[in-house]
């Protein structure tokens, strides 16, 4: 935690024009560090390699998996469930968030209900989901939507609250219709929060998708992980976990790319691109 609050290099404001390494390279270095740790920890006996095999063993197992159609089928199932769940949660979270956040009365009325529902863990809902939808992907979808919806909703609620009063008054004074106000003032302000909500929601959706598959047994990577777990196939299990983690990394890369375009005007982005 050394770099606290310095105007980091590459910000370009402070004297020396020290060009930082590109972000992707830094990211690769970071991941390489992680790989090294995972490779060396079991090799040096820091952890028992029966329980955490070295990275190379995981990669070998992954290579084996990648040769099977089942793996790709599972990956596809997982991605499909995840994308569908996230899309529903995003749409619902953003719409309801703006609706609830935009009307203080509604917000006050729904506050306690939201706080009641939010901490109910999806895992506790598994029997109910199964009861409703059986063990196919709809059960898992329900869990995914339920869990990631709150992430998005809360972010949007805070985002809506962050609208600059002067900007809002400008919109009001020109008598913008409510929908225009949402589109031109509330939405852009909330957008950075929505992006964070998306990133939080995406990870939670992935987690629940995997967990749902793991416990309910709907098809997907999670089920493969469960099978590997009950079979004591440690390297295979970690190989699958690596795939899940990489999905997370890719989602973030995509989110950042969207952000750079959609939030070009935002201080956080313009500071980094402009000199």
């Amino acid at each position, binding site marked *: 935690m050394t770099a606290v609050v310095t105007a980091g290099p590459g910000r370009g404001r402070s004297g020396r024009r020290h060009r930082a390494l590109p972000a992707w390279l830094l990211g690769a270095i970071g991941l390489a560090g992680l790989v090294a740790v995972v490779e060396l920890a079991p090799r040096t006996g820091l952890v028992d390699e029966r329980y955490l095999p070295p990275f190379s063993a995981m990669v070998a197992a992954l290579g084996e998996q990648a040769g099977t159609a089942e793996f790709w089928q599972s990956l596809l199932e997982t991605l499909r469930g995840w994308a569908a769940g996230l899309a529903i949660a995003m749409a619902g979270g953003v719409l309801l968030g703006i609706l609830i956040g935009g009307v203080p009365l509604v917000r006050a009325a729904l506050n306690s209900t939201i706080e009641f529902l939010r901490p109910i863990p999806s895992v506790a809902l598994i029997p109910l989901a199964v009861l409703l939808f059986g063990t196919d992907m709809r059960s898992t979808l329900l869990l995914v939507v339920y869990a990631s919806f709150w992430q998005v909703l809360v972010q949007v609620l805070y985002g809506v609250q962050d609208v600059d009063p002067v900007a809002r008054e400008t919109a009001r004074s020109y008598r913008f219709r409510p929908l225009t106000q949402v589109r031109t003032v509330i939405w852009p302000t909330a957008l950075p929060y929505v992006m964070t909500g998306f990133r939080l929601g995406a990870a939670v959706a992935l987690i629940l998708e995997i967990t749902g598959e793991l416990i309910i047994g709907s098809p997907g990577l999670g089920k493969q992980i469960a099978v590997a777990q009950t079979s004591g196939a440690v390297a295979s299990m970690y190989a699958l976990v690596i795939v899940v983690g990489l999905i997370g990394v890719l989602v973030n890369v995509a989110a950042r790319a969207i952000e750079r375009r959609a939030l070009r005007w*935002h201080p956080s982005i313009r500071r980094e691109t402009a000199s």
Partner: protein
Amino acid sequence: MTTTPVGAAARSETVATMLDVRALKKVYEGRGRSVEAIRDLTFTVGSGELVCIVGPSGAGKTTLLRCIAGLLDSTSGEVVLEGERVTGPPPGMAVVFQEYGRSLFPWMTVRQNVELPLKEKKVPKAERRRLVEEALEAVGLSDVHGAHPWQLSGGMQQRVAIARAVAYEPHLLLMDEPFAAVDAQTRADLEDLVRSLWRRLGVTVLFVTHDIDESVYLGRRVIVLSDSPTVVLEDVVIDLPDERDQLTTRSLPRFAELRAHVYELVQRAKGGHRPTS
């Protein structure tokens, strides 16, 4: 629709009343700190009038404008606009905010900022285009329409806000120190822009300024506010010819007289002087 004239000013009686501010009072309630920004303001503005408002810093000019714009609830008293009590922003009004920087949407380009209210007003595309171009031209910014507000200097931002209001062609134009950030020459140009707009469209203008010369040059009346808690100190009628010009008008002896009078009033207001009523 007539009301009691306020202060020493006698207005041309023929003009219909546009705006009627009656015993307006505004107290900001805060935790532990409650500020009586406006104590009692009563005045009327005729349709198509251009009225300047001057007063010490912190007198409540912005507060007054926000109450008139329907953006702020008054504590007591009322604002009547064209016979109707103001409860929210009325149609056909444009406001140039003192915090010009924050009133522009950073996520839009200059052009989009100016165009948006027109879209909202459902002005047809071609017409909109023309209005935007003219307004940006008038404030001297026709070459930056693709830039974002935060890429502009302070004065340029302020001019974008003015262009937005001008392009909107409002009935009622409220301006809160709209020229504070521009240079003298631009300021003069913009003053003339406001006057020509006013004469051409017959728009009613309320203009808050700290520049006493400006208030006298622009206005038909200058309302001088007292120090906070605010009342009207004097309603000065500017009996200069309607045809004004930066050079000749400002060199009229009557201009100097009025200027001196208003200056003295503001100075007294700062000194805490209030009318004996």
